[in-house]
């Protein structure tokens, strides 16, 4: 269960937040918690669908203008940014998915046992490590993962966008993830997890994420050799869970972000009552239908005055927008009955995210975004026609 649902339940039940983790919202059977089958070996991320081979590289940035919000002994904010981009190079060393240590910490955080600690680090990716970027005037997509999750959990989406001609800047928000390897090799763990049941916690996280995003946008030109290939007038942001809430928050604070997608994240940012005209898309699991337990999308929907969509994917769960479902075989987990298989949830996520970005950053009209499609019958358009599914 994600942070937002836990806190939401606390309030919904009329309990103070403390009650949340204690009883009103018992730890759900995490999709990952019960190894019920044997591991099928390391996962392979699906091939990107765009025309370009994909390169990737990591940047380490340090914001000395503010203290770290979680580690009180650090007076600067260190961030790891992973870039994915089109390249011409077709062969070379594939980038690691994560380090063995990160895999170990991730499995520990998810309370998965019964498979080797380094299982996730063996995941096969498609991007060539440090390949030379190619193309010009490329639109930029900032990507932000869910709480406790490293950026690598959105690799299949990031690689696909890069293959379609986008530069992706994925941010590891330090101390908000089970594992982030910093520039000097230290591995930052989830310090923010200590306080994740505090009231107002999510609101604090997204304020920090918005600051992280603005800092990355400020720094990118100077810190990456390939940055002259970016068209800085065409920037969007996509995030899952609290990363999606972060997309909304970043857009409210920073007008450089022209469009945004929130994948299944309860939102926390206050949209000005005067309105919010830049394009925004909510993309959710059936938990996020209008009138559901989470009021946040209903609340924000009224305040979005520009192009907007609210789609809900039948059979999706919170992790369906991430690489999570692709890992179930490797982790020896039988997915819950009725949940979209990983290959399909990745296809849906890639397709609709790309359609949104193509329409709003590349000015290519996408009929997929206007009405239901027989090719993707899982996708329902809310609030008008999605109903209880």
């Amino acid at each position: 269960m994600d942070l937002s649902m836990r806190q939401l339940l606390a309030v919904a039940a009329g309990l103070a937040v403390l009650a949340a983790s204690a009883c009103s919202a018992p730890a759900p059977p995490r999709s990952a918690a019960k190894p019920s089958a044997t591991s099928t070996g390391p996962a392979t991320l699906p091939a990107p669908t765009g025309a370009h081979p994909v390169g990737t590289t990591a940047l380490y940035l340090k914001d000395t203008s503010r203290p770290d919000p979680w580690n009180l002994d650090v007076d600067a904010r260190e961030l790891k940014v992973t870039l994915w981009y089109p390249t011409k190079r077709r062969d070379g060393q594939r980038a690691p998915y994560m380090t063995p240590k990160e895999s170990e910490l991730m499995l520990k955080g998810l309370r998965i046992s019964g498979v080797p600690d380094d299982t996730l680090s063996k995941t096969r990716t498609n991007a060539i490590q440090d390949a030379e970027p190619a193309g010009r005037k490329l639109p930029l997509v900032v990507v932000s993962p869910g709480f406790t999750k490293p950026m690598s959990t959105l690799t299949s989406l990031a690689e696909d966008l890069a293959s379609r001609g986008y530069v992706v800047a994925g941010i590891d928000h330090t101390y908000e993830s089970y594992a982030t390897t910093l520039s000097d090799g230290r591995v930052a763990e989830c310090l923010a997890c200590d306080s994740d049941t505090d009231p107002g916690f999510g609101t604090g996280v997204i304020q920090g994420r918005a600051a992280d995003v603005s800092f990355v946008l400020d720094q990118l030109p100077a810190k990456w050799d390939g940055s002259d290939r970016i068209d800085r007038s065409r920037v969007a942001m996509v995030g899952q869970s609290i990363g999606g809430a972060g997309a909304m928050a970043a857009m409210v604070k920073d007008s450089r972000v022209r469009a945004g997608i929130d994948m299944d994240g309860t939102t926390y940012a206050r949209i000005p009552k005067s309105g919010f005209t830049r394009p925004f898309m909510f993309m959710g699991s059936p938990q996020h239908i209008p009138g559901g337990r989470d009021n946040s999308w209903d609340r924000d929907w009224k305040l979005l005055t520009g192009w907007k969509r609210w789609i809900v994917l039948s059979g999706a769960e919170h992790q369906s927008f991430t690489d999570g479902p692709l890992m179930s075989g490797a982790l020896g987990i039988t997915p819950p009955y009725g949940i979209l298989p990983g290959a399909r949830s990745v296809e849906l996520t890639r397709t609709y995210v790309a359609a949104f970005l193509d329409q709003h950053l590349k000015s290519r009209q996408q009929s997929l975004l206007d009405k239901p499609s027989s090719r993707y019958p899982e996708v329902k358009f809310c609030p008008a026609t999605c109903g209880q599914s």
Partner: protein
Amino acid sequence: MTVIRTAAAGLALLLAAACTAPAPPRGQASAAASTVCAPPQRTPEAETPTTIDVIEQAYFCILGTYYSGATLDARSLLTAGFVALTQELNRNGRDLPEATMPALTGDRKADWTAFENAYRKVTDQVPGLRDKLAIVTLEAIVSALGDNHARWTHDAKRPPDYYEGDGYGLGLQANVNGPQVGGNPGVAVPPLFVTTVQGGAAQAAGLRAGDIVESINGSAPFIGGKATPAINALYPQYPEARPVRLRLLRQSTGRRWSVTLKPGLFQRDLAALQVVRSKLLDDSIAYVRMTGFAPDSANRVLKAISRLRTGRTLTGVVLDLRGNGGGSPLEATRLVSAFVHGKVTAYQCTVDGKCETSRTDDTVDLVNLPLMVLTDRSCASACEHFSSAIKDLRAGLLVGTRTAGVISGPAQGYLLRNNTLLGFPARHHLGPNREVIDRIGVPPDHYVPLTSKDAAAGRDPALAKALTLLSK
């Protein structure tokens, strides 16, 4: 109403306490009872209306699993339910000749059947009131337990424009708050005054800490020194939105005036919402404020102390538990264990006197510093577990006022068939000396109350006393 409000206002935290407590041994609850109700295994689905079947489930759930369920006279529950039912009928101008209590025999099942028949006969005639009648009946049955950790949570709604961290209400806290309003209201003492202006209507109207509330909607907060239900109106719960009229006195100027405050959402300071906050005082005292025994909060307190200790010599710790509504008894025990080892922190006992013992976790490193604990009448539940253990085990001194006396026992939540949650304890709590703390509270070693003048001047006499004691 009182029970509900209690829960909503301050005791909210208490249910939490419950949940992490060890489940009663299997043999304890009868096999039949354990199938009647169970703790929720995942996020409950959407609530459905409360029906007589839900009330039946709650009734047998209580009899099977509640602390004194095995021995209590079940007729008292059914009678309380029927009283509430008839009062509600009457309030709605729909009293009925058939609305009479059936004869009860003391046979729990037969009595239920008689009750259900009478209940159906009444409610079938007033279909428009059916939901409301079911709710007041079940609320009354739960409140008949007279247990401040028994609570039925239902129909909790949030304002549609709510943002996480927002408060709802008038935007103020008074010295009478939380458990003193509903959980143990007899403990409040006059005068009633504002302690914190949080935002919203109170802030807009220019209220300040220290302002004395002389009347609420025309009623006195205290009569003959005893708190009145009028104080409830200071803490409206959504969807209550009726404006509240306050008559105020500002002692510094002698000004008397009235304001009308409309309840609503207000933004709260995010930093102030953190459950654990710390700072260094007098260059050598670790001051840690903890507003709840949330998961991990004992570790957070200990981390904060060791962080403040890095590179300097501390001479003491002030742990500020004022307003701490409780939480997990495991966290309470863990935190006690940082100050004393090898001791019992509490007993949890069944109605027939069989007790489980909570012992310190001696794997927790001792802090080895003098400890002052600031308490007040809003320190409830796990907060009292902690405070009583520190006091009884002489691991530190309590400074401030007596604790809330709201610690019947650790509650567990049970999911009812309409996806509402019934919570209550299976065991009752006793302190390390096997003393009852519930309703009595833990008296401080040093009694230092907060006055309205202190609040107006921003003084904190309890903290000042604690620092004085540490410097001796």
